[in-house]
Structure formats: structure tokens, C-alpha cells
């Protein structure tokens, strides 16, 4: 831990020396690929440019969800003159060398909405804890199902994505604690066609045997919400993830109990703020109160607010309050500026 902090401080210092305090900040927000989850990143980057008086804050995304494409894009952005990065890493390990390379050019890099594995040169990771969020979501589901012997199914994303494993573990942990049986995990369905086919087939054959559904990836949440609406009897309880309109509407209409949010807008906005600070003389505090995370020891939990029918319509307020709280916390506790 100490070694890492030293390294990090060194990198940050280098940055300052190399570029001087006058450098105009050009932040690039780079997601792993095109995905509706990042819809709020673009307005967030525009707002950040205004609010923090940045030289540029642009949302740039790889044309496909492919690690190599993201790496190519990041390298190209350096060539284009960007000097600060807020990145959703395509892979927690595979992205590290490229991110280190970016740091090597003097640019601060913040992992946003997903973390990279230690050791790495990124300043810190700003995200919701995927495992914890899945755990809490499952808790909410268990609560909604009420007492008795209960069985649930878990629909999740690509197995090759490491967060998937964290989520599977999180769900399993919550279920084990409450004595709930997970009868089926269906994975590799974070694309509309396979999700539709497999979720449909599963509910058709085994729908009567389960009491609850937890989804921990965007597309399965959307497809399963539609399926719940279609079944219509609201017997099976479901907790979703993220803020797709379909999911929100299903919550409003009572087909879905609630959803675990990740506040992508706030994450991107705050990351731009921190990156600018880091480029212009600030460092990550030596005694920053990082929380623990399976991947990294420099993790800032952006929270995983839970929405249900009661607060679904005021979701924007929830997000805004959280963003403000987060920015205050980052500035006060995690950055030290001279």
C-alpha cells in the first residue's frame, strides 16, 4: 500500500513538473464501448467543461466493445493532445499496460464505473462496487419476496467480463445468508437477441418454479422487465440493475420491485473534476480514506442508490444529491492540493 502510494505520488509530481500548472486540461471520457449505460457521460462531460473551466472535455467511445479498439483509441487520443482521462476500462487487467502508458505521458487517469486490478498507475477508481451492489440488490429482492422457502434465478452478463463473477458471488452471498436457493444462473446474455431467447425459454419452462429474479446486467434487466410485464401477474418479484427507461417504467407500474443504480453521470462529472485537479498541482492524499474493493485498494465508492416505486420519479434528484456529496468528499478527503 505504501509503495503504491509513493509511486502514485511520484507519478503525480512528475506530471506537475512536466506540464506546469498552466497546462490547459483536455479531458477524454472513454467508455469500454458503445452502451446505453454511458448515455449520461456526454452531458456530464459538457457540464464539466463549463463548470470547471476545462480546455476540453469530450466523450469518445470505441466503435465496438473490444479491448483492442479501446486501447487503440486511447493511444490515438494521446496523439490528439488529450492530457487527462476518465476511463471505463475494457478489462481490469488487460487495460493496465495501456493506462500506465497514458500515465507515462503525464496524463492523470481515473478508472470510472469499473476498476482496474492493482498494481497500476491510475490515480484511483471511482465506481459502484459491483459485488456489493449485487448483494444489496439481492437483499432487497429477498425482502420483497417475503418469508418462506424461496427460489430465485439470476440473469447476468458476459462471463468473460470480470465484474460478472463479482456479481455472481455477491448474489450468491446474499442468497446463502437468507437461505434462498439460486436455481439457475444464466450468463452471456448482455445482447438483446440471446437475452430474449434464453430468458423467454427459461421463464416458459421454469417460471412456475421460481419466486424471484435478480438481474445484474443492462440488457438482461431490460428484457426481463419486459418479460415480467408480459407475464403480468406480479407473482415473481424482480430486482433489476441500472436505469434503462424500460426498467424504470416497469418499476412505476409495479412489475419490477426496484433497481440498483450506478449514477454514471455523477461518476463522469466528478472524474473530470478530479482529473483536472490532478493535472494542475493536486495529488491523491497520502491518507485518503479509500474503501476496500476486490480489485483495488484505491477505490472510491460512488454509491449504489436503490430505486423503487417510491422514488423512481425523483431519481434525478437522488443522482444530483449524490453527485454533490461525492464531489465534496473527493475534494476534501482524497485530494491534497498545494
Amino acid at each position: 500500500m505504501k509503495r503504491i502510494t509513493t509511486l502514485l505520488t511520484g507519478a503525480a509530481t512528475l506530471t506537475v513538473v512536466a506540464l506546469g500548472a498552466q497546462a490547459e486540461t483536455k479531458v477524454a471520457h472513454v467508455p469500454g464501448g458503445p452502451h446505453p449505460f454511458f448515455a449520461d457521460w456526454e452531458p456530464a462531460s459538457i457540464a464539466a467543461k463549463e463548470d470547471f473551466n476545462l480546455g476540453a472535455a469530450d466523450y469518445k467511445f470505441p466503435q465496438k466493445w473490444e479491448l483492442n479498439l479501446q486501447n487503440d483509441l486511447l493511444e490515438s487520443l494521446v496523439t490528439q493532445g488529450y492530457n487527462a482521462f476518465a476511463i471505463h476500462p475494457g478489462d481490469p487487467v488487460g487495460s493496465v499496460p495501456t493506462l500506465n502508458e497514458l500515465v507515462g505521458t503525464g496524463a492523470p487517469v481515473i478508472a470510472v464505473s469499473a476498476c482496474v486490478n492493482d498494481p497500476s498507475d491510475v490515480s484511483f477508481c471511482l465506481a459502484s462496487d459491483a459485488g456489493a451492489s449485487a448483494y444489496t440488490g439481492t437483499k432487497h429482492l429477498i425482502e420483497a419476496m417475503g418469508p418462506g422457502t424461496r427460489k430465485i434465478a439470476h440473469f447476468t452478463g458476459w462471463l468473460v467480463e470480470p465484474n460478472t463473477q463479482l456479481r455472481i458471488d455477491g448474489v450468491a452471498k446474499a442468497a446463502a445468508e437468507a437461505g434462498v436457493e439460486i436455481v439457475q444462473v444464466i450468463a452471456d446474455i448482455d445482447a438483446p437477441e440471446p437475452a430474449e431467447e434464453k430468458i423467454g425459454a427459461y421463464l416458459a419452462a421454469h417460471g412456475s418454479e421460481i419466486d424471484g429474479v435478480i438481474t445484474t446486467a443492462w440488457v438482461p434487466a431490460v428484457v426481463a422487465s419486459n418479460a415480467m410485464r408480459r407475464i403480468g401477474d406480479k407473482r415473481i418479484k424482480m430486482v433489476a440493475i441500472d436505469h434503462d427507461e424500460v426498467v424504470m417504467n416497469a418499476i412505476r407500474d409495479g412489475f419490477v420491485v426496484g433497481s440498483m443504480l450506478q449514477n454514471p453521470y455523477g461518476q463522469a462529472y466528478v472524474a473530470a473534476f478530479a482529473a483536472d485537479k490532478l493535472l494542475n498541482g493536486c495529488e491523491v492524499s497520502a491518507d485518503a480514506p479509500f474503501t476496500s474493493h476486490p480489485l483495488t485498494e484505491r477505490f472510491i465508492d460512488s454509491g449504489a442508490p436503490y430505486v423503487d416505486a417510491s422514488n423512481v420519479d425523483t431519481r434525478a434528484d437522488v443522482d444530483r444529491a449524490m453527485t454533490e456529496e461525492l464531489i465534496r468528499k473527493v475534494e476534501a478527503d482524497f485530494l491534497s492540493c498545494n
Partner: protein
Amino acid sequence: MARLISQSDWATPMIVAVSLGVLISLFNPAFLSTFNIQVLLEAVSINVLIALSQMVIIAIGQMNLSVGALGGLAAVIFAGLMEVFGLPPIVAGALALGVGLAGGFLNGLLIGLTGISAFVITLATLSIFKGLNLAITQAQPFYEIPDAVKHFGNATLFGPFPIIFVPAALIVVLLVVFFNRLPVGRWLLAVGGNAHSAELSGISTAKTVVIAHAISGFLAACAGVLLVARLQLGQPTIGDDWLIMSFAAPIIGGAILAGGHVSTVATVFGVLIVAQITQALVLFHIDPFFVQVVLGLMILAAVSVNQWRELRMQRAGQE
């Protein structure tokens, strides 16, 4: 009758598909539940269009890599026109199908006029179509799908028959007629079987190629539009995963990649085989980490049975 079955090119895929169904339902009677059949038919309805869209191109001995990109483009155009311009579904749908037709037409024109391999051309247009999709959607789904369209994509006609089964079945019937009865359909097979002699008989290869690609584009667009109705949203990722599926079903159905021989009915059974395998994996609680392995083995098994029978028939024919 027995002779008819044993000699027609769709017999083996049919036998495989039916026995697979029987096998699955023996182990899990829920497979034959109304709801499950409905889900199966929904999956088949759309996948059939994807597979046929590729099959039309296989018929002329080419490949169309842009099937998914074009279908996806049509899908988001359909959804986008309804959400952004508030067009009625019929108009939006017609325009989306028109885009598919035009995109396919463009493919065909480029291939027919330049003589560059279809593989290269459709690879390039794949990028163009997908790029247009991203440019239109900015990677965000369109959500405002009218209820009528949602209903169309999710309701059943009677029993387990979903409404979207109707257009799929209609297209299958049309294609069967097209390839077996219409001169223009025979052009495709003639060009695929022996382009030189087709040309000598006065069939224009370039024209045939354009027609085939236009049809392919149209079918891909149909699949895209139906998928929007079924998913109830215009996902920009629609079509990304179609390619492999689009080839697998026609080939399981016995289509020859070199061209000149395709069977619409066999392709339908090919789709059914793949859909049943996918369903079985879910039904039997296969460990998610093991799903891929089983899928690979089952595809191999399904085609091996087909191959084995074909070889036997060949041998029998020789004696």
C-alpha cells in the same frame, strides 16, 4: 411418401429437428408447454429471416457479411422514425424495409458492377451500415415504441402462435415459391450453379446478383423490424451477433457454400435445430460455464448426423 421423404433435401434436417424435440420433451415435459412453444416459435420466427437473408446470397455462391449491420440499421431506423418523427408504425416499417432493400441493392450494385468479391464489398458496407447505425442512435436505444408495435411483437394469434410467426411463415412460403417456381428465383440458382452457362443462356449475372442482394437486404430488414417489435425497443446492438447464426442454419440445412443449391425448408429446420439446442441448454440447468461446450458439441453432432446420412445415400446411389 417414404421415398419422397428420403430423397428430399430437407428430410435429414427435419428428422434431426424432430428427434431433438422428442428427446428434449422426454426429459423435460415443460418443453411442450404452450408458453414454451410460443417462445420457441418467436425465436424461430426472427432467426429464420436472418438465416434466409444469408441463404439467398449463398444461393448465388457468395457471402453477405453485412446482414447483421443492415438488419440493425433497419431496426433503429424503424424505431427512430416512430420516436423522433412520430411516424405511424406502418410508414416507419415500410421505410425501414425500404432502407434494407436499398442497402442490399447497393451491395449488389457494387459487386455486380465492379466484379470485386462479395466478401470484400460486404465487409466494407458492414462498417458503413453499422457506422450509420451508431451515427443515428449515438449508441442509445430508442424507447418510444408504440403499443401497437409492442403488441404485434409479443401477442399470440391463437394457441402458441405468436403474431410475428405470420410474416415469417409468409416469407418462407414466398421464398419456397420463389426458388422453386419463379424464373427469377431460378436465375439465382442457375448463376450459383454455373454462372457461365447461365450467362450464355441470356441470364444476366450482374442483374441476378443485384436482385439476390436486394432480397437479402430486405429480409435482414424484416428481421430487424420484427426484433424491434419483440424487444420493444430499438437497440443499436441489434444485428451484432447475427453473422454466425445466419450461416449456421442454412449450412446445417445442407446448403452448399459454393452456390447453386439451397433449400428454404431445410434452412427453417436448421434454425429450429439451433433454437432447440439453445433452449435445451436453459431447460436442463446447464452450468453457465459449460454452456458453450455443450453448444459446440451439439452443433457438431447435429451436422454429423446429417453428413453421415448424406454419405450413406451417396454410396447407396453409386451401387
